[in-house]
């Protein structure tokens, strides 16, 4: 039983290994630099059909075609900017995982900064208010001790003394 399970696991592991390599095409690069640029582009360009996979990870036919096209452009010696322009002219800003900053993408780029500053603002207000309250409480405590006049202090110690006497007297009676 365990052995059979092991076999099944092994088969699935093999299947996964195959699919992980499915998107790798035969390489035909003139230099390591060209290969590095290719790897960079297939990681950064999005497959237009599959929405949330890059060209490297997608098995869609269109992704294979675009990888082929990319290799052709690299072989022709096109610059990074030319390649990006080529893709955007045909498939729109959508193909860029890192969209360029313009009117349409401003919200996308600025939202994190905006949300972060709102968060910092909220925390700041909470801390500031909390401090204010604590200071107020401390002030009040100080005021209480300051407000006691000399007579009041005398009265207070007298009361405390009387209380101590009664409890002492009580305990004395209990002892008897």
């Amino acid at each position: 039983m365990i052995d059979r399970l092991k076999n099944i696991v092994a088969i699935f592991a093999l299947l996964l290994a195959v699919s992980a390599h499915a998107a790798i095409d035969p390489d035909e690069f003139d230099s390591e630099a060209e290969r590095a640029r290719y790897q960079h582009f297939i990681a950064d360009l999005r497959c237009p059909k599959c929405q949330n996979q890059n060209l490297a990870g997608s098995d869609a036919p269109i992704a294979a075609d675009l990888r082929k096209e990319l290799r052709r452009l690299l072989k022709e010696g096109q610059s990074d900017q030319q390649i990006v322009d080529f893709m955007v002219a045909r498939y729109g800003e959508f193909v860029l995982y890192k969209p360029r900053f313009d009117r349409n993408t401003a919200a996308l780029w600025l939202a994190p900064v905006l949300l972060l500053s709102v968060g910092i603002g909220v925390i700041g207000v909470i801390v500031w208010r909390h401090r204010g309250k604590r200071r107020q409480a401390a002030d009040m405590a100080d005021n209480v001790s300051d407000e006691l006049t000399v007579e009041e202090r005398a009265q207070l110690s007298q009361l405390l003394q009387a209380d101590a006497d009664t409890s002492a007297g009580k305990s004395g009676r209990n002892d008897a």
Partner: protein
Amino acid sequence: MQRLKLFIPLIFFAALAIFFFVVQKQISRGEYDPQNMPSALIDKPLPEFALPALMSDDIVRRADVIGQPLLINIWATWCPTCAAEHTYLNKLAAQGVLILGVDYKDETEKAQRWITEKGNPYRWSVQDPEGVLGIDLGVTGAPETYVIDARGIVRMRHQGDLNERVWTQTIGPLLEKLRREGSS
């Protein structure tokens, strides 16, 4: 005021729930498809092409088809939706709609057989076995239909099958408008 603050998460949740519900409704009614992308070619000229004709030995070029409003239909025999769409395309062709058929990443013989068996709605038919025109047009799959005006400008792209609803709601009225623009 303090009480009200407690309800902020609930209000947030309710707003999101309503938003997702509306989007889901639109998807189920076929009004919105998250897979559909706006074409980058809208209001841009149709790219140049010179492709072998499907049913003859000619070469069809961009200049051969431009001059009147037309549809460009991307299809293939490997695409099941294209089979469903074909009947409707035949109907449109009978009404005099000009269509350029692009047999996209397909085998010539199979495609020729398909046209012979199902009828030919295409005024022009070209083969694009490597998907070259496909990439220039920003095609992501089949079927797709583009509306081109008389000056050769791409005016609209529809992803998915061209059916009665799509025709009466979007493509038909647009083509009618383009025809009037052309004649005036």
